[in-house]
C-alpha cells in the first residue's frame, strides 16, 4: 500500500516535471522563432538579403536547429522560402513589426519611466517582448505619451506602420569639424554600449569629430575630448543638427548663483519622456524667467522661483535646463519677456 502510494507520487512528480520541461522547451522554441523574425526584419532594413544561413549564423544556431525554426515560421505562414532567401508574408511582417514595437516601447518604459540604466534594458526587453499582447502594447504606448523614438534613438513604429529606416549615417563616416546630433546608439554588444555611454554620448547629444586616422577618431562631447575606435563609432549613428543654436550664449541652470535670474532657452534633448513632460508641466517652458532662491546642504537641490511658484530641482535636472543670463538685460525687456 505504502509502496504503491510512494510510486504513484514519484510518477506524478515525474509527469509534472516532464510537462514543465516540455512547456519550457516549446516557449524557448517560440521565442527563437520571434528572434528569427526580428533578425530578418533588421537585415531587410539594412538592405541585406536575409538568407537562412545568414540568419542562422548571426543567431548562433546549428543548421539543424535553424531548419526547425524556419520550418516553424513556414508552418505559421510567416515567411516564404525561395532557394535560400527568406521573405515575409503579411502576417509575418505584422508579427515582426509587433515584436520590434514591443521591444522599443518596453525599453522606453524601462528607461524613462522606471529609470533603469540604458545598458541593462536590452536583455529585459528581449525577454518580455514575446509575452506582451497588442492591447497591452497600445495601452503602454498611450501611457508613455506616444513616444516617437526609443532611448537608443530608434524610431518606434506605429501599430500599423511600414518599416522605414532612418536617414542617419554612422559616426565613423561623419566629416571632421561639423557638429552632429546623435540619433542612435547601438545596444549590442553591451560592453560597447557602456563604453559609448561613459563618454557622455546618448541620443540627442551634440558631438563633433575633431580628428581621425585609420583606426580611431577623436571626438568632442560638450567640453571634453574622447577617442574611440572606428568599430565602436560604427554603432553610433548621427545626422545634421536639427537646430543650430542661435547666437545666444546659453548656460545650464545649475550654474545660476543664488539670487540671480535667467531666462529659459530650452530643455536639453537628452531629457526625454516623463521627465521632460514633468518639467514642461511645471511651467519651465522656453522664455520663462527663473530665479535661484536658495539651496540646501551642499546644494544638491536648489529652489527656483518660476511664475510666482517655488520649485525645487536637483542639480541633475537643473543641468538639463539651458538658460540665458539676464543680468545684462534691462528691466523693460524683463517685463516684455513675461509675455513671450
Amino acid at each position, binding site marked *: 500500500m505504502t509502496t504503491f502510494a510512494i510510486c504513484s507520487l514519484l510518477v506524478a512528480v515525474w509527469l509534472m516535471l516532464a510537462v514543465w520541461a516540455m512547456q519550457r522547451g516549446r516557449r524557448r522554441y517560440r521565442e527563437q522563432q520571434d528572434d528569427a523574425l526580428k533578425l530578418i526584419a533588421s537585415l531587410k532594413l539594412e538592405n541585406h538579403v536575409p538568407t537562412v544561413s545568414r540568419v542562422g549564423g548571426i543567431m548562433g544556431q546549428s543548421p539543424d536547429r535553424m531548419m526547425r525554426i524556419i520550418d516553424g515560421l513556414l508552418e505559421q505562414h510567416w515567411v516564404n522560402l525561395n532557394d535560400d532567401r527568406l521573405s515575409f508574408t503579411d502576417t509575418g511582417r505584422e508579427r515582426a513589426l509587433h515584436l520590434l514595437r514591443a521591444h522599443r516601447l518596453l525599453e522606453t518604459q524601462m528607461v524613462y519611466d522606471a*529609470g533603469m540604466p540604458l545598458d541593462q534594458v536590452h536583455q529585459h526587453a528581449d525577454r518580455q517582448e514575446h509575452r506582451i499582447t497588442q492591447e497591452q502594447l497600445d495601452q503602454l504606448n498611450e501611457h508613455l505619451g506616444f513616444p*516617437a523614438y526609443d532611448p537608443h534613438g530608434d524610431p518606434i513604429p506605429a501599430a500599423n506602420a511600414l518599416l522605414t529606416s532612418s536617414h542617419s549615417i554612422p559616426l565613423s563616416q561623419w566629416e571632421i569639424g561639423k557638429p552632429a546630433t546623435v540619433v542612435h546608439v547601438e545596444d549590442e554588444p553591451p560592453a560597447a554600449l557602456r563604453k559609448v555611454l561613459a563618454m557622455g554620448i546618448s541620443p540627442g547629444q551634440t558631438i563633433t569629430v575633431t580628428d581621425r586616422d585609420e583606426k580611431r577618431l577623436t571626438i568632442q562631447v560638450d567640453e571634453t575630448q574622447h577617442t574611440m575606435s572606428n568599430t565602436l563609432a560604427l554603432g553610433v549613428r548621427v545626422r545634421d543638427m536639427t537646430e543650430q543654436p542661435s547666437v545666444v550664449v546659453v548656460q545650464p541652470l545649475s550654474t545660476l548663483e543664488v539670487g540671480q535670474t535667467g531666462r529659459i532657452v530650452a530643455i536639453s534633448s537628452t531629457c526625454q519622456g516623463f521627465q*521632460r513632460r514633468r518639467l514642461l508641466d511645471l511651467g519651465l517652458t522656453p522664455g520663462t524667467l527663473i530665479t535661484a532662491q536658495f539651496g*540646501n546642504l551642499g546644494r544638491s537641490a536648489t529652489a527656483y522661483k518660476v511664475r510666482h511658484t*517655488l520649485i*525645487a530641482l536637483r542639480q541633475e*535636472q537643473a543641468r538639463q535646463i539651458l538658460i540665458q543670463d539676464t543680468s545684462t538685460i534691462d528691466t523693460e525687456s524683463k517685463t516684455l519677456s513675461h*509675455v513671450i
Partner: protein
Amino acid sequence: MSEQSLTPRDYLSQIDSLRQGIDDSFRDELVGEIYTHATMVTDATVTEKDNGPAWDEKLDWLLTHPVWGWPLMIFIFAGVFWLTVAGANVPSAFLAGLLIEEGGLREWMSEYIGWAMPAALSYSGYELLHMLMDLIHSPEWLASLLVDGIYLCVAWVVSVMLPPMAIFFPLFTLLEDLGYLPRIAFNMDPLFKKSGAHGKQALTMAMGFGCNAAGVTACRIIDSPREKLIAIITNNFMICNGRFPTVIAIGAIIASTQLGGGAWAGTVAALTVIAVVGIGVVVMFGVNFVLSRSVLRGQSSTFTLELPPYRKPAILRIIYTSLIDRTMFVLARACVVAAPAGIAIWAVANINVADQPIGLYIMQFLEPLGWLMGLSGVILLAYIIAIPANEIVVPTVVMLILLLPGMGETSLQAGRMVEVGNDQLAQMFTAQGWNLMTCVCFLTFVLLHNPCGTTIWTIWKETNSWKWTAVATLMPVVMGIAACILIATTWRLLA
C-alpha cells in the same frame, strides 16, 4: 458622402498616421503655447501689489538654512513626538478603563476628575460582555474565546493605537498644511540622494512615525516605481506609534533596574525612544543605499518638488482629513487584523495538550533561537502572535510569562492579556533572568522585525506583487535576527 463611410477605426488609424509625422518639439511647443496663453490672461486680469510680505522669504531662509534648518527640523519633530506620547496617556487610560479594566472608569475618574464613581456604573466593556455571556448561558470556552480573545485584543489595539494617532496625524497634517513638510524633503534631499532614493521619501518616512501602513500608502507621491519600492520597503524602519509603548516600557525597565528608577525613569525612557528612532533613521538610509545599488539599481529620477507658499492652516479640514482619512482608515484596518490575532492569543494560552497550554510547547521550541538572539522563547512567541498589531507585544509578553510554571501565585489572571505597572514589569523581567542585554536585544528587535499585519497588507495592495511584499516582510526580520545574534554573542564574549 465618403465621410459617412469612415468608421471610428478609420479615424484612429488616420490619427496614428498623423502622429507619425509629429516631431519631437510638438509637445514642447504645445505646452509653451498653453503657458503663454495663461500668462496673457493673468497679465490682463491680475494686478500685483508690490509691497507683498517678504516674511515668507525670511521664513524660508530660516527653515531651509543649510546649517540651522536641521536642528530646527529635529526640534519640531521631537516636539511632535513629545506631544503625541505625553498627550496620549490620559485618553489611552480612559479608553482602557472604558473597554478593558476591572472596575471600568472608576479609577480614571478618581484620578483625573476626582469623582468617586458609584459601583453600579463601574463596569468596563470587558466585564459587561462577560456578564452578557453569562446571561445567555453561553458555553465557557465560547465566552472566553469571544471576550478574552477577540474582544480584548481589538479593545487593546484601539485603546493603545487610537489616542496617539488621533494626536499625531492632525499635527502632521498641520505641518503639511502650513507648507513645512515639503521644506523637510528639500532639507533632507542630500542624504536621500546619496543613498540613491527620492527626496520625497522624507515625507513618507515622517508619516511612518505615525503609522507604517499610512507611510506606505503615502509612497504614492513618488513617481518612479523603483524609488517608490525603496520607500515602501524601508518605511518599516521608522518606529511607528504602535511600537512606541514597547520602547517606552523597556526604557522604563532599564531605568528602574539599572538606575534604581525614580526621577531618571522618564528621561531614560525618552532618551531610549530618541536613540531607537535615530538608529532607525540610520538603518533606513543604509538599506536605501544597499537596495539602490543592488536589486533596485537605476538612475535617480527627476526630483521636482513644489514648495508651496506658507498658508494659514484650515483647522477644520485638517481635523477632518487626518481623523477620517488617516486615523480611522488605519484603525479600521488594524481592527480587522487584530481580531484573528485575538483568536491566536487565546488559542496559545487556553488550548491545552497534555495539561499544558500549547503556547508553552511553542515557547520551549523557540527557546534556543531566543537564547541565541539574547531574547527568550516568550518574547519571540509574543512577536509571532503580535504580527497583526505591534501594540500588543508587551501585554502579550506579560500574559505568556504568567503561563510559565511557577508564576501562578501572582494575583494576575493567566490566559489573557494583562497590563501591569512599570515596576511590576521590571520585577517580572528580572525574575525571568532578563538583564540589560535582553533589553538591548529586545529594543533591536522592536526596530528590526517584520512590519505589522496591517502594513504587510497595505504593502501588498500598493505594490500588487507577492515578491516585493515578501522582501519587505522578511528582509527586516532577517536583519533583526542577525543583529540580535551579533549583539548577544558579542555581549556574552565580553562579559
